[in-house]
């Protein structure tokens, strides 16, 4: 059985490179520097204590992001956020139509990054979360499914909805700048 010191060192080897990603994701969740730091700190503490349960053959990043997310949802801010309705629980309204802007209209001008940040801020937290994990953290669907504790099909539908919503939020900004 590894000593506490070697276990801690192994944990740090895996966790330290993820500090920026964890902090960025935490900030998107709580929107406050001090709370983001506290959230990461608490998640790291929990993860270290539970490190024995981590299977080395699995994805550490997905494992610790799941802990971060669960830590958030047990916080006061997180409990309020979790009251958001999961629309994929209502498959009859989930069917995605391509009724939004045409692809030509949505070709993104790269100098509109501020508009994209604003649109991300306006997205429903559950939709923003899946985009952050997929596009920013470059995680695979199966790892996102593990973090969110949902089936892969739900991850796919959430990503579709999130991108469609983001396009619709961005489009007026772009039209306004044209």
């Amino acid at each position, binding site marked *: 059985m590894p000593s*506490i*010191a070697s*276990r*801690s060192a192994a944990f*740090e080897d895996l*966790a*330290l*490179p993820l*500090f*920026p990603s964890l*902090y*960025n994701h935490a*900030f*998107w969740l709580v929107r406050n*520097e001090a709370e*983001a*730091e506290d959230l*990461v*700190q608490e998640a*790291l*503490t929990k993860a*270290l*204590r539970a490190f024995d349960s981590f299977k080395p053959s699995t994805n550490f990043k997905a494992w610790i992001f799941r802990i971060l997310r669960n830590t958030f949802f047990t916080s006061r801010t997180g409990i309020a956020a979790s009251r958001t309705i999961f629309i994929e629980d209502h498959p009859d309204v989930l069917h*995605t139509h*391509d009724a939004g802007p045409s*692809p*030509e209209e*949505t*070709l*993104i001008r*790269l*100098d*509109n*990054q501020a508009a*994209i*940040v604003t649109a*991300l801020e306006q997205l429903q937290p559950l939709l923003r979360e899946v*985009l*952050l994990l*997929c*596009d*920013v953290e*470059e995680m*695979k*669907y199966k790892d996102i499914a593990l973090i969110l504790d949902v089936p892969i099909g739900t991850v*796919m*539908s959430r*990503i*579709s909805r999130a*991108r*469609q919503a*983001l*396009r619709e939020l961005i489009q007026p900004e772009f039209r306004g700048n044209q």
Partner: protein
Amino acid sequence: MTQTSQHPGPDTINAYIDGELPADERQYAQQHLLACHSCTLRVLSATQLKAATARAGHCFAPTPEVVARLTARLHAEPVAVARVHSFRPVAWGSLAAAVLLAVSLLGWNQLRHSNTLAAELLDQHLAVLSDSAAPQVISSDRHTVKPWFQGRLPFSFNLPEPDALPPDTILKGADLTYFDGQPAALLIFTVHKHQVTVLLSHQPNDLVLTGIPKARAGFTIHSATASHLHIIAVSDVNPAELDLLITALARAQG
């Protein structure tokens, strides 16, 4: 999607750009895209949105002080459990680790920034390839293209004479763009039948160019600096021919 004639749905398009489609479905999708202009545009649009989201979504970085505090607390955690270390070695160890981490984070941030810039370059190139993104200036005359940038850019640059360009290389047009948050000249060339996007930017930090990947998604990205001007080219043309074009542009800056 079971037939290449059927347009892929949003989930398939998303899975395609996320690299999540099984091999057979990916092959079907690729075959369909070869023949369907509207779906190709949808994929391009989705790819650009994904890249833009990636850039915009990674905007909150911890300060070195935050990283140092998190590291120090992490180090303190097993001490509280095991109670085997004195405070002083832990404190020194935490400090050393924090310094090491800060240094490594600088390198990590540089790498991340370089990857972001490479994605930005590729987006610019893909946008140029799209029919719907015609450049502001469509001209092969350098005496038309260069003056167009007067008053639009905070710097000037030279374009080589047509006979100073590599064989079968033609200036097609230009546009004003932004690269790494700075205004830049976007020049469009063709080399044989390959399109080349060249960005000219004037940035004091030479580090911008170091670390940018030489290739991304099958496209070559080469760069040079001449007279404080950064010249960056993206194309699927032969890398040696891309270098010839960059050399000609660098030589023209005198």
